């Protein structure tokens, strides 16, 4: 057991490093309005965050992460470019299913974070290199992904707009995505949807249903997704190698899916920028599907640093680009944003076991 004060001390060390990297410290509220988070994350947040009711404010939530309040604070009046850092507790419920593990995860733990809001093509490399440098003493595995490349590949598929939209929506949900791909890859038989004698009930309207039925009726006319395209997509999702080798594979695939070439070259530039900042790209593991396991609002680079000797642990640090989140919270206004968090508590455990 590492004392909380020791974790706090390590957190302060990262905070100082983030300030030295040019960030202004912010201290968001612990008690946040629930509505924004519920809309963004859906039911997941209820399973993971502590909700409470305030007689005046309504539903409130104990801060489950810093990203949303930091983005909101920036959108409310931050000047660009901006770099922010923070250190504080986050609160997470840990519901483990049928059996509780012997050592359940913490319900409250520290996060030290660094976020960049800037239209700067080197911002991804800046954040990754900073985290890499701060964590280099701990022998962690660095992994990177890039949702941009996957999303561009899906946009390139020769399918109807409706099918493309469904695939883009569900790319973060592997089962649902696989079911859609399977359905779109075979000829669709016309569905017999018998009319119901039941009277209409509920808020969904008849015309909303008719709109969906029209989409379903158009399905049998749609050409199935050609096997070659399904294969290209699966080969892309499977790329998992040291970054320079992954880049080679991606460039080869870009000859078949030209629409990803631009995003692949952005990755190449990022790797060059990292090398210039002293990070060896060969030491970064690039997995094309890395970002599919993260939060839905990471829509560009994603990264994690994990401890190889503790496979059961969550990442020691994680982050990525979340332009879509700023667009969602900015109501039309969007700011390119990238950042990440370190868990000082886990770093303290690592230091204690050395």
């Amino acid at each position, binding site marked *: 057991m590492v004392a909380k004060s020791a974790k706090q001390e390590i957190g302060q060390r990262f905070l100082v490093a983030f300030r030295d990297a040019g960030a202004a410290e912010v201290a968001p509220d612990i008690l946040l309005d629930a509505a924004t988070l519920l809309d963004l994350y859906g039911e997941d947040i209820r399973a993971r965050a502590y909700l409470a009711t305030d007689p005046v404010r309504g539903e409130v939530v104990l801060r489950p992460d810093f990203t949303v309040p930091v983005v909101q604070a920036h959108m409310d009046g931050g000047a660009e470019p901006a770099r922010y850092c923070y250190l504080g507790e986050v609160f997470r419920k840990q519901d483990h299913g049928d*059996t509780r593990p012997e050592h359940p995860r913490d319900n409250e733990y520290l996060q030290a974070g660094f976020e960049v809001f800037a239209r700067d093509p080197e911002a991804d490399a800046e954040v990754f290199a900073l985290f890499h440098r701060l964590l280099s003493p701990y022998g962690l595995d660095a992994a990177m992904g890039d949702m941009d490349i996957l999303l561009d590949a899906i946009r390139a598929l020769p399918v109807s707009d409706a099918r493309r939209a469904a695939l883009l929506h569900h790319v973060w949900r592997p089962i649902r995505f696989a079911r859609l791909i399977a359905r779109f890859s075979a000829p669709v038989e016309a569905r017999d949807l018998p009319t119901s004698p039941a009277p209409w009930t*509920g808020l969904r309207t*008849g015309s909303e249903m008719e709109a969906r039925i029209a989409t379903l009726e158009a399905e049998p006319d749609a050409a199935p997704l050609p096997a070659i395209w399904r294969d290209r997509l699966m080969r892309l999702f499977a790329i998992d190698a040291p970054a320079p080798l992954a880049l080679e594979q991606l460039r080869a695939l870009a000859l078949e899916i030209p629409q990803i070439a631009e995003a692949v070259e952005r990755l190449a530039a990022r790797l060059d920028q990292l090398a210039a900042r002293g990070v060896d790209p060969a030491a970064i593991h690039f997995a094309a599907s890395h970002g599919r396991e993260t939060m839905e609002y990471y829509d560009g680079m994603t990264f994690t640093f994990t401890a190889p000797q503790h496979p059961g642990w969550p990442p020691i640090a994680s982050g990525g680009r979340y332009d879509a989140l700023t667009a969602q919270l900015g109501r039309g206004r969007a700011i390119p944003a990238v950042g990440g968090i370190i868990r000082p508590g886990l770093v303290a455990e690592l230091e204690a076991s050395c």
Partner: protein
Amino acid sequence: MLKLGVPSKGRLMEDTFGWFEARGIKLSRAGSDREYAGRVEGADLSLVLLSAGEIPREMAAGRIDLGVTGSDLVREKLAGWRSDVRELVPMGFGHADLILAVPACWRDCENLDDFAAIARQFRADHGFRMRVATKYHRLVRAFLAEHEIADYQLVDSQGATEGTVANLTAEAIADITSSGETLRANHLKILPDALIHASQATLFASLQGDQAEIDRFLSQLQA
């Protein structure tokens, strides 16, 4: 002496008494109908009568050693239930299915894939996530998460859940049903591939009790 908790009223209590009687143990209320103490003949047990909904918690806390309640209630009320109790015998009555139901007029909704697609469309059309009314939050959320249904939210409904759709406070419901009659009366239909849990009355044992004594009692039941 082992302490047994049994639902304090209704069909569930009568069926439980009948089930034990068939195994040579006579349970009864002590004194009047309003008293929640019980009498036991034919076994070294003490009987307490409790609300079925409280029995899981009482077992988890170790205040009773044995309990009869619905398998749905144990799963819903105890996070990590296998760490608190063990399932001794499914009792063969009190059958009820926790299901997902949508308006019967939704002729484009025949399975969970349709449900997922409609939720996405609904969210885009209405600007909020499609609402599913239930009191079984943990079970329903775990089921929908396992099937990767997005774009929905749960709204709490502790009673008359079938009415929430007509009242426009939910678009779908997840509730216990045995015959489906209330669903039909409220113009709802069950999604056939969304059976969340098939519940029945079950005899459970607290893991905090004397397990050897519990096992001896169990073999008396099975003799």
